[in-house]
């Protein structure tokens, strides 16, 4: 068996090993269906309960759309995991903005807001886009203006003492880690200016040579110099994600 087929086999095994099963531990991943049903990412029990209260109320129950709004709103108020609602995930300027989307699976209508500032009710704003415009997605301060004009409270500051403290600590740590690539300076706060690929390779080569004296830091994925690995060693985790 040639060297390349061996490495292919190893790669497949690694991929398979790194993959997680859809079946959850100790039980059956697929459970028989019983209406109504609410499913949500993460263990956001309060949000699922809020949606369940709406969808299971009375004989006919509330609508699926209203239940989704209730569930997502609950997480916006509770600031689930710090990843939903105001007060979390500051950007490089320390500001918190909200993204939200709602979809009606009966009519295929969709409403969404992105990078919305100064309005704390993301999912409600998305529903207003769905119900009062022919559009699908409104962004930034224009989404803010739309939401406030449709009656949502605002403008209000979406930051919190926790998010501002988190941001201040990050600034003191030379704005690391961050989402930039192929820019200089690489290891401190901006302003940044673009560096071309040759310069990027050169500075990264020095970094790899320098680091091989100590702990080996793999900064470049061998087969894709166009997308340096450090752009994949991003710090996406349970408390920092979409």
């Amino acid at each position, binding site marked *: 068996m040639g060297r390349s087929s061996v490495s292919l086999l190893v790669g497949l095994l690694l991929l398979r090993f790194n993959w997680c099963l859809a079946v959850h531990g100790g039980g059956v991943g697929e459970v028989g*269906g019983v209406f109504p049903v609410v499913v949500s990412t993460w263990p956001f*029990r309060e*949000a699922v309960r809020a949606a369940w209260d709406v969808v299971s109320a009375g004989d006919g129950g509330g609508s699926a759309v209203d239940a989704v709004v209730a*569930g997502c709103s609950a997480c916006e108020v509770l600031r689930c995991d710090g990843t939903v609602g105001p007060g979390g995930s500051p950007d490089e300027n320390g500001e918190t903005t909200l993204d939200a*989307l709602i979809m009606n699976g009966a009519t295929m209508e969709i409403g969404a807001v992105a990078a919305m500032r100064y309005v704390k009710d993301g999912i409600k704003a998305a529903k207003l886009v769905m119900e009062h415009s022919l559009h699908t997605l409104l962004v930034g301060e224009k989404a803010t203006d739309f939401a406030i004009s449709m009656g949502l409270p605002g403008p209000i500051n979406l930051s919190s003492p926790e998010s501002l403290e988190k941001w201040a600590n990050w600034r003191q740590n030379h704005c690391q880690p961050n989402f930039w690539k192929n820019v200089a300076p690489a290891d401190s706060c901006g302003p940044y200016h673009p560096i071309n690929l040759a310069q990027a390779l050169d500075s990264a080569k020095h970094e790899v040579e320098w680091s091989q004296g100590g702990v080996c830091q793999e900064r470049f994925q061998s087969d894709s110099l166009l997308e340096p690995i450090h752009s994949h060693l991003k710090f996406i985790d349970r408390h920092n994600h979409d």
Partner: protein
Amino acid sequence: TISMAVIDKMGHVAVGTSTNGATFKIPGRVGDGPIPGSSSYGDDEVGACGASGDGDIMMRFLPCYQVVESMRQGMEPRDAAMDAISRIARKFPNFVGAVFAVNKKGVHAGACHGWTFQYSVRNSSMHDVEVITVYP
């Protein structure tokens, strides 16, 4: 991020996502939260999907649209979820993300890559919310 799917007593499907995105993002950056077909998608005729993870990568693959369309073609939720995640992992082995899939019969499943994932469920056969863990 919360992504939620609801099937009501009439059998109607709705999905929603709400998030404040990635921490220390470059100002103006939007993840896949508000992108239909990436963070969530639903269709009364088929079922629904919700997702969470690295939105910069996931919005390039629209995993939830893939899940719903796979179920439309007859795939079970578990296979549809695994297939959507594997398509991303093949191109981005270091990617972090997860989806849940639920079909119009209420059968649900989850799949993930790069982290342990949990999703929550409540239906009429349960007394309270149940949390399901999907291990890497």
